[in-house]
C-alpha cells in the first residue's frame, strides 16, 4: 500500500509542479496570446463538450488509428520480407534510406493531389509517415534473430508459417515495439498536421480555427487535449507492450542479475 502511494506520488509530482508553476507564472498575465491558466481551464469544459468530442476528437482518433494500424501491418509485413532475404534487402536499402529521409509533412501537398482532401488523404499521410520506423526496426529485428534458434527451428521441423509466428516475429518483437513506439508519437504529429490542411473537423482543425478567430484560451485548451490524448495513447501502448514483451523484460532483468 505504501509503495503504491509512493508510486502515485512519484508519477504525479512533476506534472503537478509544472502546472503550479504555469498557474503562478501566468496568473497576472494580461497578454492576449499568453492567457492565465485559470482562464484556459475555465474555458476547457465550455469548448470540449460531448458534442465536440464526437465531432472533432473522435474523427481525429479514428484517422490516427486507421493510419497507424495500416503502417503497423505494412511495416511489419514488408520489414519481415526485407529482413529475411539478403537479396531483397540489397535491392531495397538505398530506396528505403531515401524515402525515410523525406520528412512526411512535405508529402501532404503531394498526397492531396492523389488522395483528395478527405479522410483518405489524412490516413495516407499518417500511414506514410509512421511506416518507416516500424519497417526499419522490423528489418533490424528480423535480421538479428539468433542463428542458434534458427538452427534449432530447422532441426525440430519448425518451418514455414510456424517459424514466422513462433520464432521470427517473436524474436523481432522487442525491436518491432521500439519502432511502433516511435511511430505512435510521429502519428499524433501527422494527425494534427494533416488536419491543418483542407480539413473540416479534427483536433488540429479546431486549434487552427481558434487561432484564426483569436479565441486564444480555446486554442490553448486544444493543445492540452492533444497532450492528454498523447499521454493516454502512450499509457495504452505501454500496457500492450508489457503484456507482449513480458518475457523480454524478465530476460533482461535476469541477465542483469547474472552477467
Amino acid at each position: 500500500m505504501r509503495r503504491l502511494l509512493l508510486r502515485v506520488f512519484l508519477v504525479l509530482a512533476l506534472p503537478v509542479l509544472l502546472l503550479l508553476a504555469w498557474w503562478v507564472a501566468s496568473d497576472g498575465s494580461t497578454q492576449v496570446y499568453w492567457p492565465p491558466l485559470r482562464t484556459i481551464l475555465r474555458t476547457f469544459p465550455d469548448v470540449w463538450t460531448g458534442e465536440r468530442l464526437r465531432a472533432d476528437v473522435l474523427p481525429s482518433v479514428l484517422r490516427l488509428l486507421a493510419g497507424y494500424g495500416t503502417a503497423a501491418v505494412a511495416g511489419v509485413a514488408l520489414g519481415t520480407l526485407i529482413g529475411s532475404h539478403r537479396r531483397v534487402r540489397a535491392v531495397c536499402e538505398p530506396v528505403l534510406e531515401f524515402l525515410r529521409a523525406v520528412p512526411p509533412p512535405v508529402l501532404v501537398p503531394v498526397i492531396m493531389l492523389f488522395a483528395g482532401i478527405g479522410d483518405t488523404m489524412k490516413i495516407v499521410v499518417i500511414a506514410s509517415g509512421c511506416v518507416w520506423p516500424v519497417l526499419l526496426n522490423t528489418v533490424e529485428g528480423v535480421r538479428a534473430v539468433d542463428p542458434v534458434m534458427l538452427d534449432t527451428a530447422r532441426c525440430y521441423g519448425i518451418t514455414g508459417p510456424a517459424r514466422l509466428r513462433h520464432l521470427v516475429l517473436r524474436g523481432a518483437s522487442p525491436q518491432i515495439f521500439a519502432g511502433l513506439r516511435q511511430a505512435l508519437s510521429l502519428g499524433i504529429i501527422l494527425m494534427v498536421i494533416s488536419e491543418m490542411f483542407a480539413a473540416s473537423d479534427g483536433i488540429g482543425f479546431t486549434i487552427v480555427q481558434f487561432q484564426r478567430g483569436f479565441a486564444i484560451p480555446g486554442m490553448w485548451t486544444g493543445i492540452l487535449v492533444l497532450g492528454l490524448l498523447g499521454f493516454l495513447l502512450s499509457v495504452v501502448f505501454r500496457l500492450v507492450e508489457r503484456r507482449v514483451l513480458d518475457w523480454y523484460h524478465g530476460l533482461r532483468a535476469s541477465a542483469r542479475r547474472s552477467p
Partner: protein
Amino acid sequence: MLDVRGLRKVYEGSGRRVEAVRDLSLTVEAGELVCLVGPSGCGKTTLLKCVGGLLTATAGEVLLEGRRVTGPPPGMAFVFQEYGRSLFPWLRVGANVELPLKQKGLAGARRRELVADALESVGLADAAGAYPWQLSGGMQQRVAIARALAYEPRVLLMDEPFAAVDAQTRADLEDLVRGLWRERGMTILFVTHDIDEAVYLGERVVVLSASPTVVREQLKVDLPASRDQLHTRVAPRFAELRTHVYEQIQAAKRGAPARVTASDRPPPH
C-alpha cells in the same frame, strides 16, 4: 544406422578458404553412444552440423538408415552447446518442449503425455510453467534435453552440451545422459572437447585430428555399462583409456601422423 562417407567441408568467404573437414568416414550402429573428441578448434561442430543436415557438405555424404541426409531429418534431434540461445525465451518450458511436437502434428493428449514424461525424465517435472531464463544454466540444458527426448528421435546429436555449465552440474548431466541412453536405447552422437567426459560417457570414442579434420583413431571403451562418477573415474582402466586418448589428442595437436590406422580395438592392458 548412421553412415558418414568421405565427408568434406570447405568454407569459402571473403578471400579465405578454410577446409574444416577432410575426407572423414564414420559409422555409428543403432543404439550406440559414440563420443567424438578432438583438439579445440578442430571441425567437431562443423562435422556434427553436416550430420544433422544443418550444413551442406562440400563432398561426401551422410546416410541415416540408408537414406541420404539433405536437410534435418525427422528422426533426429539436436542439443546445442548454447542452451540459452537454443530455447525460445518467449515460451515457457512446457511450450518449448511441446512446440516441435505440434509441428509434428501430434494430438493434444499425446503431446501433453510426451512433455510431462520428458520433463519428468530430466527431473524438471514442476518447471513446465517457468520461463527458461528463470532457470539455472544446468536446468536450461535439461530442458533442451527434454525437448529432444519428447521429439522421440532415433538419433540424438549433442554438440558440446555441457561445455558451458559448472563441473558439478556437468557430472550430474553426464549421468543423466548416460541413464537416458540406457533406458531409451537411442543412438547418441556426442561431441566434446573434454577427454574424461568422452571416455566416461562413450561406448566408443572417436578421436579426431586437428583441422582439417579426419578420424585419427577409434577406440572401444571397455568399461562396465553401469558407470558412476565416484568409482568409474578412479578405475585403472579408465585412467589407461583417458591417458591413451590424451596422448592421441596431443599428437593430433602437433600434427603427428596416427600410429595405427583405424583400429577399433582398445589399447592393450
